[in-house]
């Protein structure tokens, strides 16, 4: 009697408390650690691509550069400009991190790992990413600086329009699965990854992902040559660090979404599911960084014209054709 009670309590403890805690904590710290590591990965990989050495002094292969940069960022003076709107100036970097981390709540990493399985998973992601605009808008507005303001305005227009194609390009996947839940979508890809029947959707989603995370070549909000540092010109210390790491967390989220929605999620032969998921995600992240260092930045009007004149018709076409095929079957 005593024995079974004890055993029940132990299984309860493992299943209801320890496992969820490990799940949430592991995903949270994993994402943050990976985002910070990407700072080094990007500098080092772009350097190798351009026949330079990059940071190679501290630690093996220069990984210690990461720690050095973090310590430096913590010890810098955290300065809020006199002319800034303090309330919004301080809240802006918090929003970017919160939004990037919230998105991971619905991303399933393996059959057993994943924080929550919402039946509106994709819509949750869309809602959360659409809130991410505020961080940059508010940073641009509250800095009371013309470069920051122009950066903020560019972001608002860019993100709001590319969100439309991002959402439309996903509808093909939703129709083929018949569910908004990311777990159902991964399960539906056991035999065939959605990148094959939804190749157009995959391309549109990837391009929109670049625009949403405002990574190069779509980094017009912070175009160095035109706007100094764009929306985060006035930020220093750890507030700047939040924008910096938040951007990489956004890249990790976009890569994880591409893997979940189009590249089969955790499915793959031989290796355990989690290894497949992490490996694919890391490969997509490297792709993001490489593309950013290869392609030149378009002009702003070219970016908007490309969006509304090419991406929108293509994503609508993709949706209509997919709907037609689903209806025929």
């Amino acid at each position, binding site marked *: 009697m005593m024995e079974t009670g004890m055993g029940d309590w132990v299984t309860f403890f493992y299943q209801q408390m320890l496992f969820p805690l490990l799940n949430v904590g592991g995903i949270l710290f994993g994402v943050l650690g990976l985002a910070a590591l990407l700072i080094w990965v990007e500098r080092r990989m772009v350097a190798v691509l351009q026949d330079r050495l990059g940071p190679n002094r501290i630690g093996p292969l220069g990984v210690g550069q990461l720690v050095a940069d973090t310590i430096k960022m913590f010890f810098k003076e955290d300065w809020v400009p006199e002319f800034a709107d303090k309330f919004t100036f301080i809240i802006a970097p918090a929003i970017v991190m919160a939004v990037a981390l919230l998105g991971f709540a619905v991303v399933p990493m393996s059959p057993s790992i994943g924080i929550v399985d919402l*039946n*509106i998973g994709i819509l949750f992601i869309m*809602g959360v990413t*659409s*809130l991410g605009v*505020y961080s940059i*808008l*508010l940073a641009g507005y509250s800095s009371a600086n013309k470069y920051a*303001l122009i950066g903020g305005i560019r972001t608002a227009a860019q993100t709001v329009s590319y*969100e439309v194609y991002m959402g439309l390009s996903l509808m093909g996947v939703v129709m083929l699965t018949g569910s908004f839940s990311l777990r159902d979508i991964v399960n539906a890809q056991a035999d065939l990854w959605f990148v094959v029947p939804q190749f157009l959707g995959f391309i549109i989603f990837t391009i929109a992902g670049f625009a949403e995370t405002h990574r190069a070549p779509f980094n017009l909000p912070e175009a160095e040559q035109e706007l100094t540092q764009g929306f985060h010109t006035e930020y220093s210390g750890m507030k700047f660090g939040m924008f910096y790491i938040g951007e990489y967390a956004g890249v990790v989220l976009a890569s994880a979404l591409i893997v979940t929605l189009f590249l089969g999620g955790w499915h793959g032969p031989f290796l355990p599911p989690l290894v497949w998921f992490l490996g694919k995600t890391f490969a997509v992240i490297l792709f993001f960084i490489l593309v950013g260092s290869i392609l030149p930045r378009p002009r702003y009007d070219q970016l908007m014209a490309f969006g509304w004149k090419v991406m929108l018709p293509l994503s609508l076409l993709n949706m209509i054709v997919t709907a037609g095929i689903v209806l025929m079957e």
Partner: protein
Amino acid sequence: MEAFTFYLTSGVAIASVIMVVTRVNAIHALLYLVVSSLSLAVIFYILGAPFVAALEVIVYAGAIMVLFVFVIMMLNLGPRSEEQERALLKPSMWVGPSGLAFILLVILVYVITQQPFGAQSPASLVESKEVGAALYGPYLLAVELSSMLLMAGLISAYHLGRPLKKKDQE
């Protein structure tokens, strides 16, 4: 638990709406409006309408409010507009709107108290599929009408924003 979260989010919604009215800085007021629409989304979720909750966040908080903030940023309202706003928030300005709102509140309280206590609407989960089937079934006319309205808006925006021809400039 459900009732507790409901009352908590309702409290947040009401508090943030009050802040919207009383802020003198337009951007701060808009941020509180975003908070209120987020709390409305949570209320929809608690009441068993996750699809509407997601749309509330995507459409209102994520798109419409962004455009509001965008426009206000472009207007470059300085301390002068805050002075104007402060002048508008005089107690004498409150009398009319508060009186009218109070009448509405009395009517609302009356209607609610007429309901038998505890007879709630069944809290069933409304799936996205049901929303879609309803929109393109019995409410098809409303969907078509709103799409025509949006089309008219699109055409007029294009008309206003089109590049001027040589002939027009002369």
